[in-house]
């Protein structure tokens, strides 16, 4: 996967050991799920490793992928040709697992990030809710929204490149405004990430899909720089 990971722990006690453990965990995850490493379990599975030799954790992750596919009208799919690539789910899932490891260590105030997706818990070192910015998809150096979150997950799906040709099957001639970036706030980062990924693939319908989910809010930015907010989004915005 090879993505930047940051861990900020606001509890003073045992923070160093917990951070070391968190990074060791992400290395372990990368070793198992990286499709770029030929020796990773997922690469060996794609090279024909018999199912009897798959780890229990891998089976769990793959069944979560199946479940997500069913819950998103097939928009979430890990098949790449004839290969499996669960990266789209593993990122959020691994952050979530790492967050649970921290909680088991008695750490309640932290902000964990991998590749632009967040799980926060408790309060920052200023004793306030965590503040997560949404990046301007047209300008990496700019923040266009600030969210305050206490125990939620925040994930953004999008693409920095011009890349989609989506049309409305009912109205193929009508041009539609493509979605540039979609940020989802959910009960945890695993849920936020998998639904952000699938909803982004739905194009302009994605924000309605997020609206239809209980406990989720979303902020979709189209190619014209117009954002669409779900009905409860504003309560997180500064």
């Amino acid at each position, binding site marked *: 996967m*090879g*993505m*930047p990971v940051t861990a900020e722990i606001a509890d003073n006690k045992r923070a160093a050991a917990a951070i070391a453990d968190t990074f060791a965990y992400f290395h372990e995850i990368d070793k198992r799920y990286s*499709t*770029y490493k030929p020796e990773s379990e997922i690469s060996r599975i794609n090279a024909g490793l018999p199912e009897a030799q798959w780890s229990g954790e891998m089976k769990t992750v793959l069944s979560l992928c199946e479940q997500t596919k069913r819950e998103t*009208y*097939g*928009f979430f*799919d890990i*098949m*790449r*040709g004839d290969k499996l*690539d669960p*990266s*789209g789910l593993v990122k959020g899932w691994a952050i979530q697992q790492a967050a649970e490891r921290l909680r088991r260590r008695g750490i309640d105030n932290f*902000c964990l*990030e991998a*590749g*632009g*997706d967040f799980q926060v818990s408790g309060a*920052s070192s200023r004793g306030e809710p*965590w*503040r*997560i*910015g*949404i*990046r301007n*998809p047209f300008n*990496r150096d700019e*923040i*266009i929204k*600030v969210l305050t979150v206490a125990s939620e997950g*925040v*994930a*953004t799906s999008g*693409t*920095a*490149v*011009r*890349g*989609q*040709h*989506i*049309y*409305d*099957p009912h109205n193929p001639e009508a041009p539609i405004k493509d979605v540039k*970036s979609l940020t989802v706030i959910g009960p945890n980062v695993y849920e936020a990430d998998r639904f952000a990924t699938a909803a982004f693939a*739905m*194009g302009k319908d994605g924000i*309605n899909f997020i*609206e*239809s989910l209980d406990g989720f809010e979303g902020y979709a930015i189209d190619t014209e*720089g*117009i*954002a*669409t*907010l779900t*009905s409860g989004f*504003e309560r997180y915005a*500064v």
Partner: protein
Amino acid sequence: MKKLALSAFVIISFALYSFGLRHSDSPLLVSPKTSSGQGSGTSTAARSSASSSATTSGTAQTATTYKDGTYTGSVADAFYGNVQVQATIQGGKITAVKFLQYPNDRPNSVEINRQAMPYLQQEAIQAQSAHVDGVSGATDTSQAFVQSLSSALSQAM
């Protein structure tokens, strides 16, 4: 006649059903595999972002001398399509990075079950300057670029 009408109705319903099914089953996240036929606008944009990234990598790796030649990186999955780059080394330095594959196409959108949705508020995005603890944003394509480039460079070592 009634029987005929009924069977026609059954056939038509089945046809409609399977049409709907085919739509809802289309995997949208399958890599598009479009290695050619890019619009010239896209290629130009790709190349200019590539050369700036290549400069960074070149500077960061001054200790390493690459062998001259042209090296093709592995295809890296940018999640919305594949990224594959080709690096040209001259005098031990990266002189060009070319995109061989670039996500510039997506399978068609599929109709999802649209329920009656409340009207959602819209706003124009605006820069903010408040303090934040972190920034959420998509990074997929740049990662795939780095993956493919580093695999090209490892061949040049």
